[in-house]
């Protein structure tokens, strides 16, 4: 069990948890993730490690309640625990001096981008960050990102905060400025919804600006065994859990990733509804019987009879 030390609501349906996970805290690097399972019978889902304190043996997870497991995670309070936390998983980010770096994060993608942004800032890079969300309430880690960035531009779909529009509108300006020789752009780092990351890649590709996307495909084991997280990168199959999760965004087939991520949409919705119903049902019912007689060896005589 992995006890929850702190739980804080950052935005509606967005929660920050500090969880005791000493092994992960000790060995993690920016860009890596954990797989968590909240309860017996629970699914395994990947979550980016948003921060870690090796001495305290804790990691920080930022969770947006979208599916069944993330909803359950968002209800956790200090004193409660997560059943399984496995990690660190994935390849660590390459963090070096690049120069001027645009961090483009959408929605809860800011939790994915933040640890690498902080590491890039520590490495002396100048960060020009673009943070977007559907609406002002859903902006997450704005202060944290601002603290490591030279500038932070906020964009919302509805204009409730910052500029109205898409993160790519702002990025397009930066790219143009770079092309005009006004302000260079040496690297773009993006994390968020798949269509957004695809759009970011489309903006930077014509200008050849190196762009890295942190992908979020479906996963089961997270150690390379199941192949469920396979993505097409530069026309070849890659496994996001071991080869990624970060890839050259110009080479990623985002349309394919988007389709594959939708594979269980109906089941996930049904699972969330069924769980709701099950929670209301009697607990005795929850102990499902698979209908098998327990596997018992065939009856044998007592020792006395046998001899």
């Amino acid at each position, binding site marked *: 069990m992995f006890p929850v030390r702190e739980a804080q609501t950052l935005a509606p349906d967005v929660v920050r948890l500090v969880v005791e996970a000493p092994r992960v805290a000790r060995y993690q690097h920016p860009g890596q993730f954990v797989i968590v399972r909240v309860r017996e019978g629970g699914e395994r889902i990947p979550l980016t490690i948003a921060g870690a304190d090796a001495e305290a043996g804790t990691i920080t997870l930022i969770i947006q309640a979208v599916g*069944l497991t993330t909803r359950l995670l968002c209800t956790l309070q200090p004193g409660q625990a997560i059943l399984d936390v496995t990690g660190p998983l994935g390849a660590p980010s390459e963090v070096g001096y690049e120069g001027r770096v645009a961090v483009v994060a959408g929605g809860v993608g800011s939790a994915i981008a933040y640890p690498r942004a902080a590491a890039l800032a520590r490495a002396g890079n100048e960060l020009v960050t673009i943070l977007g969300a559907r609406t002002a309430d859903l902006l997450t880690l704005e202060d944290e990102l601002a603290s490591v960035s030279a500038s932070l531009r906020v964009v919302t779909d509805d204009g409730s905060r910052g500029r109205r529009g898409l993160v790519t509108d702002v990025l397009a300006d930066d790219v143009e400025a770079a092309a005009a020789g006004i302000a260079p752009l040496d690297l773009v780092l993006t994390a968020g919804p798949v269509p957004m990351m695809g759009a970011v890649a489309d903006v930077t590709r014509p200008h050849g600006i190196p762009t890295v996307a942190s992908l979020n495909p479906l996963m089961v084991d997270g150690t390379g065994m199941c192949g469920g997280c396979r993505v097409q990168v530069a026309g070849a199959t890659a496994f996001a859990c*071991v080869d990624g999760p970060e890839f050259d965004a110009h080479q990623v087939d985002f349309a394919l990733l988007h389709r594959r991520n939708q594979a269980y949409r109906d089941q996930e919705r049904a699972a969330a509804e069924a769980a709701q119903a099950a929670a209301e049902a009697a607990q005795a019912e929850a102990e499902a019987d698979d209908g098998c007689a327990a596997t018992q060896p065939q009856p044998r005589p007592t020792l006395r009879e046998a001899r």
Partner: protein
Amino acid sequence: MSSTSPSGRTRKERMALPRVEPREHDATERAASFCEVDLGLDWEGAQLEADRCLQCVRPRCIEGCPVGIRIDAFLGKVAEGDIDGAAQIIFDDSSLPAVCGRVCPQESQCEATCVLAKKDKPIAIGQLERYVADAARAHAPPAQRVTPDPDGGSAAIVGSGPAGLACAADLAQAGHEVTVYEALHDLGGVLAYGIPQFRLPRDVLRAEINRLAELGVRFETNAPIGQAEGVDDLLAEHDAVFLGVGAGVPRFLNVPGEDLVGVSSANEFLTRVNLMEAHRPDADTPLPQVAGRRVLVFGGGNTAIDAVRTALRLGAAEATICYRRSEEQMPARVEEIRHAREEGAQFALLTNPVELLDDGTGALAGARLQRMELVEPDDGGRARPKPIPGSEHEVPADLAVVAVGNEPNPLLRRAAPDLERTSRGTIAVDEETGATSKPRVYAGGDIVTGGATVILAMGAGRRAAASMDREIRAAKSGAA
């Protein structure tokens, strides 16, 4: 050699006894359930079957067993009616007998070398092993915790699959402190995520692992070595390290359409069902709808058969094995192929996929297959399949499962970048000792051999355990 057995039957009478076959769950009933198919022998049957053993002076069966179980001795005990004596022998020689009795390919191992196989049918050694292990589990007191040997040391085992468990068991028995590190949340490796419950019920696996815990083996789940600590970190805390990390990433077909929704590796499909129990109504893990769907499984090994039989149990309207050679060349066990056929699996033999077809929304609609013919054998001696020109045809399908093997997991490169590897990417070891190129580091199982069987992995784990035991003791006495 005595001419009569404890039963009083003469050798001649015993040789005339027919092989006792296990009871099986009815094919139509079982095709809709995950209950165990093979129901095993009953006591009378077990004793009768054991009595068929001629107690050869030089028992060939043992030569056929990768872990060298004293088969003649335990069969003799069963024939005498001494189950506890039989169990003692089996547990001395094998750490997972209830598992091996179920999943070993006995027909190509111990039973293949049984002298009776020449004349008639060999002794049902696997069934008897299973019978004894099950009976011992139900009735025996917990295993005794082994007192740590003051001259012993400490060993780290990476991976809790068959190789790691076998290695851990022997080292614990020898008095060493043993810690098993497992990346997943549950123990057993392929025995937990790969082998379906209708072949290996979970309670059987759990009981055998619990026995190791009772012996004193420590288990750490959620510990992905190579991602968390590396092998060098383990070497700092332990005297020796065994890597039994399994086969790794799934291989795909390399045909267009492989990433369509509805196409998965057998590892993924089976993990969702076996490890995550996604088919159960109370499980959170999603599973593609299988009921009423047409399922194609590509491959001819045990994993492919497991996948097709699992699909049938989930209510598939049609579940078909597509294999590019003929049935004779299928690597799957004969018994498993028979079971699959009885349960309604179809076999499209000598067919190979050339493309998986898109329904227009990014989901699978079917497959374009081509017919194959067998031509002169390849280097491995197996007939080589060759496409028949003009034989391409399309079949509809809603789901496809790819079961064409695995490649070494790249995590290992991070766990120990300095380990010598073969050209296939597997770890290079000394076959006799399991020693890798790195001092104090041993390896065995699929990460060394590529995809193989549970029992071969166990054999490798045990050989490595013997070398590790020697090396640890030598180092301790040298240091003293």
